[in-house]
């Protein structure tokens, strides 16, 4: 039985309560919150991605459901919830205080208040950008929408099959309803088979997302290091374009991008344009196998980082590519002095 106790405060007036937040993706956080403080304020202070707006009990963005324990409205505050909603366990966290240990569930996930949703899209373009890479441009159908952060991925239901595949988005949220993906072709893969033989403009594709905790951390002004192998370039394109569009001074970015051979190096024009638009972006291209003509070097994109001069140990790094590359890059960067917490990575497996 859940009750909003407005009056009887004697038992819990002193000390703090343990408040547990359960996000829709199952992520749980427990905080110790002093009685008399706003649960929203305490949660935000602890860095939890709690949705909010007015912070005065009006707009209802901070809505949560009390599933265990007791919690009531802070003295002197008002909540715009109806009594019936309160009775059903609804609380506006900005004006709510705990009365003893309690637990709330939230209607959104822990990657910053994002909802995973399914959406219908149309194919706009299918373009071969290298022997084994296809650029797929989708467009959300009327009435369909997803939100995401640059770096995150979506799942695609391969048309005509019951298989799903995951791909990082190469475009930015500002480009929605358009979504761009870079897909590596694999002999015999179901997605490859669809792309090569059946995908055409106006085909309908079902997607779901966003997914993943690999996304651009906002507000960082320290140098950014990005290491990408193959189609691991996709999330980097999204992040670079996001940085370009965001307000304030842009951080220097070093992108080290590697492919197997020079013919396979795709998106060189796209990267050149980014360098034109973002004077602080430098790009190092590597190929595993020679020959390679200047400025492309033979070698892996990991060891290329730090060769041209010292790396600022305060840098943040983003890594995306096959598991082996990501592991190697992580230890290389840690050896160069980067803090493990500042290295974000996404590894992909061929499928």
């Amino acid at each position, binding site marked *: 039985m859940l009750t909003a106790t407005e009056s009887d405060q004697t038992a819990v007036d002193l000390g703090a309560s343990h408040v547990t937040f359960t996000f829709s993706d199952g992520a749980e956080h427990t905080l110790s919150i002093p009685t008399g403080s706003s649960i929203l304020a305490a949660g935000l202070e602890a860095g939890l991605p709690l949705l909010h707006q007015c912070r005065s009990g009006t707009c209802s963005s901070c809505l949560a459901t009390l599933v265990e324990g007791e919690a009531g409205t802070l003295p002197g505050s008002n909540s715009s919830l109806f009594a019936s909603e309160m009775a059903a366990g609804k609380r506006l966290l900005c004006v709510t205080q705990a009365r003893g240990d309690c637990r709330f569930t939230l209607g959104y996930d822990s990657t910053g208040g994002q909802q995973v949703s399914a959406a219908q899209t149309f194919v706009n373009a299918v373009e071969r950008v290298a022997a084994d890479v296809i650029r797929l441009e989708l467009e959300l159908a009327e009435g369909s929408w997803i939100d995401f952060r640059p770096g995150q991925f979506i799942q695609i239901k391969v048309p005509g099959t019951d298989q799903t595949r995951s791909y990082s988005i190469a475009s930015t949220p500002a480009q929605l309803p358009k979504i761009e993906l870079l897909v590596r072709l694999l002999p015999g893969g179901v997605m490859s088979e669809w792309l090569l033989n059946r995908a055409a403009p106006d085909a309908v594709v079902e997607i779901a997302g966003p997914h993943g905790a690999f996304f651009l951390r906002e507000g960082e002004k320290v140098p950014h290091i990005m290491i990408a192998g193959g189609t691991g370039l996709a999330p980097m394109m999204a992040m670079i374009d996001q940085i370009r569009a965001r307000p304030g001074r842009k951080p220097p970015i070093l992108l080290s991008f590697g492919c197997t051979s020079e013919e396979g190096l795709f998106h060189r*024009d796209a990267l050149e344009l980014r360098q034109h638009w973002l004077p602080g972006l430098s790009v190092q291209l590597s190929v595993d196998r020679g020959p390679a003509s200047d400025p492309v070097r033979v070698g892996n994109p990991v060891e290329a980082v730090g060769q041209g001069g010292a790396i600022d140990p305060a840098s943040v790094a983003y890594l995306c590519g096959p598991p082996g590359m990501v592991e190697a890059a992580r230890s290389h960067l840690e050896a160069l002095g980067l803090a493990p917490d500042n290295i974000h990575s996404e590894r992909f497996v061929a499928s």
Partner: protein
Amino acid sequence: MNEASPIRRRTTVRMSTSDKRLNDSALQSQYQPYKDAAWGFVNHWYPALFSEELPEDKVEGIQICGIPIVLRRVDGKVFALKDQCLHRGVRLSAKPTCFNKSSITCWYHGFTFDLADGLLSTIVANPDDPLVGTAGITSYPVEEAGGMIFVFVREDDYPLEDVPPLSQDLPIRFPENSERFPHPLWPAAPSLLDEGAVALGLHRTGQSNWRIACENGFDNAHILVHMENTIVHALNWVLPLGILPDHEEPITLTEDEDGPKGLIQWLFTDRWKPVMENPQLGLKIDALNGRFYRTSVVLPGCLMVENWPEEHIVQYEWYVPITDDLYEYWEVMVRVCKTDEEKKAFKHRFDRVFMPLCLRGFNDCDLYAREAMEEFYADGTGWDNEQLAATDVSAITWRKVASRWNRGIAKPGKGVTGATKTSSIRLRRLAEGKAPGYFVEKIEDVNSY
């Protein structure tokens, strides 16, 4: 998942461009950011008002890059805040209400904002509201120079510590740049930032996109439209039919790290050759009684015409985006006046000659020429369909340099004047004979409407 069959959004069809076009598709995508900047480049310094338009304690509302801005002068100092109430979006400037020197109050429900930082400092009828002190509206840095008020028009989350000095958004200065960009035919041009600089001019609203206007400012191919202007004949200037680039570097970029970013054209040097004759049309120009000048442009769209319209004077122009189809056209002449006498003489000549014959007469031509281009570009297709020619190297260079160095592309205005082109208020105002403009519509008589 929606079971009904999905419906396509309305999308724009891209036209193909021919290879012969100067602006082929590779070039086009080099300046994609510029094509995206219909509402202007944000996070830059823009002129907002002439100093004399904002006397002590006056409040004015304007709009730049789709951002409504309210200005108030207190004890000589100008403050600028977002002119959109935190509460429900009312424009504070529509009915200015100030109860003290440090704040401005929304006339509707009394939300009161600190002039210095935009923080909600109280609410008239609810001083204890928990919102007080925790929320607010964006504030904009302000500078005054030579009789003009400049505002740093920023996105809400553009950090104040990243705001560059005004000089980074004003043209390069002389004589410090005289060696790099020699000008043997005229004395060093003054700068608005010079000591004793006096700016005289006007600003008025033009009905076209700001980029169309800006590109006209340094377009070397449009001398034709000015052939019959009174000033040209009154002062016996003879203008060539046009000038064509004749060098591998007819234009030099200015990209110094802490300096303004833009371009300067080597006009009246051997890098551009005047066209004196078109035999086919029977046109021939005999003696060149040259009016030597040089144009340069820097972000966010500030034109400088050196040695114009006479020695020791420089003409500046800005094409300040209001919406995607309106801009505020600033035409300003700057001269350094060391004494009151000099100032008087400048003002006298400005009022009698330059204002009517240059800023009106001559530049009126430019105003209608830009509006003549507007419809071709208004739906976005003109950028793909235009057929540029050799002289348009100036426009292309500007588009590329602007794509590279702008500090942000303004998002289409949301919830602001001009965002909805067919709102009933806009239509009513049109019916009342009031064209969409730069200033807020003020409530004049509180008892009748």
